[in-house]
């Protein structure tokens, strides 16, 4: 169930625009922030708020890489697998991350801390090979900087 204040806030935002469905991504992000990921229930709630069918909302939700339809860890690592990062050795970095965290792409570590998701070009080719962790960009990366970063995040936790 959505808390009343969040529901009210979203309703107000929706009421202020001409075409409610233009806010579908914003609503999904708000629900994702609340639930941790976009649950089946969240899709239905978004549909109800926006006057869309749940199927229509799900089509958008499943389309975008940054809308998570399955549970994710506390830190979501989006490692770029596009061409520039690939030229700079991004593939081996992804393999290094997998090995270091003992998870395959798409999986979450057993402690629930890290989720590894490959992503198509994040627009930081100047810092290739690059990755995003919870929307913050890191790069150029080496195995050493990755080790350091993961340790810092574990400690911060």
């Amino acid at each position, binding site marked *: 169930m959505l808390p009343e204040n969040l529901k009210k806030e979203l309703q107000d935002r929706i009421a202020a625009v001409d075409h409610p469905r233009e806010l579908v991504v914003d609503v999904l992000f708000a629900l994702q922030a609340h639930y941790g990921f976009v649950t*089946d229930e969240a899709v239905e709630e978004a549909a109800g708020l926006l006057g869309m069918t*749940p*199927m229509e909302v799900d*089509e958008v939700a*499943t*389309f*975008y890489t940054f809308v998570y339809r399955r549970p994710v860890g506390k830190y979501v690592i989006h490692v770029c697998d596009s061409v520039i990062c690939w030229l700079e050795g991004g593939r081996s970095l992804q393999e290094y991350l997998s090995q270091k965290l003992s998870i395959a792409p798409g999986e979450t570590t057993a402690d629930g801390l890290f989720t590894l998701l490959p992503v198509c070009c994040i627009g930081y080719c100047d810092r290739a090979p690059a990755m995003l962790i919870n929307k913050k960009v890191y790069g150029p990366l080496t195995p050493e900087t990755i080790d350091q970063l993961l340790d810092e995040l574990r400690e911060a936790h």
Partner: protein
Amino acid sequence: MIKLIIDNLRVEVPPGTRVIDAAEQAGIMIPRFCYHPALGAVGACRVCAVQVLEGSCRGIRMSCMIEAEEGMVISTTDEEAVAFRRQVIEWLMANHPHDCPVCDEGGQCLLQDMTVSGGHGRRRLPVKKRTHIDQHLGPLVVHEMNRCIQCYRCVRFYREYAGYTDLGVMGSAGRVYFGRRSDGVLESPFAGNLIDVCPTGVFTDRPSRFKGRYWDFERTPSVCIHCSLGCRVTVNTRYREVVRVEAAHDPQVNGWFICDRGRYGFPYASSPQRPRSARIDGRKSGVDEALDEAARRLSGIAQRHGSGSVALAASGRVCLETLGALTRFGSEKGWRGPFFRAGPRTAEALQSASKNLEEKISISLKDIEKSDFILLVGCDPVNEAPMLALSVRQARRRGAVVALADARSVQLPLDARRLALRPSQLTAALMRFAGKAVADGGAALSDRARGFLQACRDSRVDPAVDEQIDHLGLAARESRRPVVVCGTSAVAPDTPAAAANVARLLAAEGRKAGFFPVLPGANALALGLAGRTADHGAALREALEKGDVRALVVVETNLSELGFSADDPLLENLEALVVCDCLDSAAGRAARVFIPTQTVFEAGGTFVSAEARVREARPAFRGGTPVAQVSGGGHPPRTFSPDIPGADPLPAWQVLAALAREGTRVSADTLRKALPAPLCGAAPGKRLALPASAPDAFQPPEDPATAADGGLEVVVCEHIFGSEPLSRRAACLQELESAPRLGLHPGDAAALQLSAGQRVAVDCGRGVIEGEIEIVNEMARGVLLVPRLRGIDWHAAADGPLVVAVADIRSVKPNGES
């Protein structure tokens, strides 16, 4: 016309024609996956690439995305174009499984054809194929997502064309998934078309699984007889059994699609319960013996009590040949009937719909798609004539205004303006609408038309709704192609005539107006034109009670449609009950003489659709018990005999000829010619020659406003699955039937102190209807909805809409006590 050259052939096409269609007209079939004439072009699959040699856009182009231009030169055989298409096939095959030998689409697969003809055979891509988890989509359609090539035809049909929302496309790039949010039955009653539109085997037919391969089937052009629209279908048979029915293309009627009732309604023909041998007094006999015995008994009764003591009963599912036999032998022998419909109200409604269809205002389903204003009166398209709903939707997609005047909460796959009105209010509402829709009397109108217009302007319905009707009328003023669609079961008897008159009035004003009736049964229009209004079920009942009728011949008719219950005591009083049918029915079991008849798949037949189009079904196979039933499901029997087991059934018209002692060698042609005009001139594929003007055109109804106060009008509602007598026997459709509940408006339920789920018994005079109450928000007040479904004894209200007093409704406990 535009002239262009495709592969060195000169082609002439109208402006706006796509190159892919222009080529098809010249006999060149350019490969395609995503392009479909009904769904339009999206340029998604890239397989229709051609080389444009001359024209405004030279080079490799998608032929579905470019329009033909004057002087254009196109090559489909150009080396670059061929290489491009071969490349496309190769990448579409990158993820497609090599399961053709076990795939149900095999042999009927566009991708298979294209891969083979494109020459692709060796995989060069050294990676694994992507896989998906399939969903269970219900009893009709099997899902196998791995075979998908992302042409988007399924969602374009399901969502855009048909207007249902539970199937969609999820994910992106290599993860694109076509399906529902979770497993579950597809909600659209047009879902079977996914099987036809999918160019590969993602959606395949579940009921015909493992019953044979495409090339094993004999394919026969036929017509669907599960409603009055007469959609064209292809019947697939194998081993003396109808295995599958597919949509056949008909540009004027059903286009490329059919509904699921039409697609899956056929299993009655091969049901193990289907009676295949004749019976005399409960004892099995040969058909010749039974025919002799029945003819002897009928002539004996005619001699003792007069020829009028023999009566005939028929329904909208008899074909034109059988109707001809009923008419000819009935009149030659002096037998009564054929009796049809339940009583005076339903008989009059059918006849006022049939006899008012005239040349100027008669239209096709295709015309409905092109109309700009559609008024649906007392008609529930999805449940009564499903493909009509899709036609109305296409008009709505093009911007037409759709309005709905009905007692029921009619569900449509489109947004429509709603007027919740009782059946008794519909005639007056229609007239009031016309009074507003016609701007001024004008000199164009004849005196009679002007008289009708005046009656329209004087028409009042109810102060609460008059204003809404006026708004609707004003909205229709600007329309150039208005259409009035009128049903016959949830209307007053004179509503169809009023609907036709409204269309006439709009046409007299110079617009291209149309009238489209929705009728009960595949051949109901013919029955309405050939039958006499006075010969209805209630009149038959009276004649039985008086003892005027001693023998009844029931021909391919469920007596419930004539208002009789299965165990009606009146039937026991008959000296002879002769039933000729292809279905196992209560009347058939009670018959003194039963004669099995052939289904439309064996006998063929001609039917006249609601839009007066003559439709022919050809015999698909010779008949007989399906091999699977003879063999008990194993190997076909190894014993041989010259005759086909279970092939006793005869065409109903031959049975009638034998009963009249005319021999069975009567020709179908002469029987059709025995019918009154215009039916006698029926030529398959053509429309009936309709009268230029109906005799009582512009006749205002006698008493337009007859609102029933203090009682409830009982409306029997047809459902898409479970109502129609033939398709309700299909096991796969029975899973989709709605629960049988009696519908009440919340206001009426409160006034009657009834709540949802409560059981009530409603005394309809001739019988009691019992069932659970359901509160229906969008329906009209003052109405009780009775579903025509198993579990509800609806026949007592068959001659609807009838009025019951509040005192006739009492609540009962589940065990039947008051």
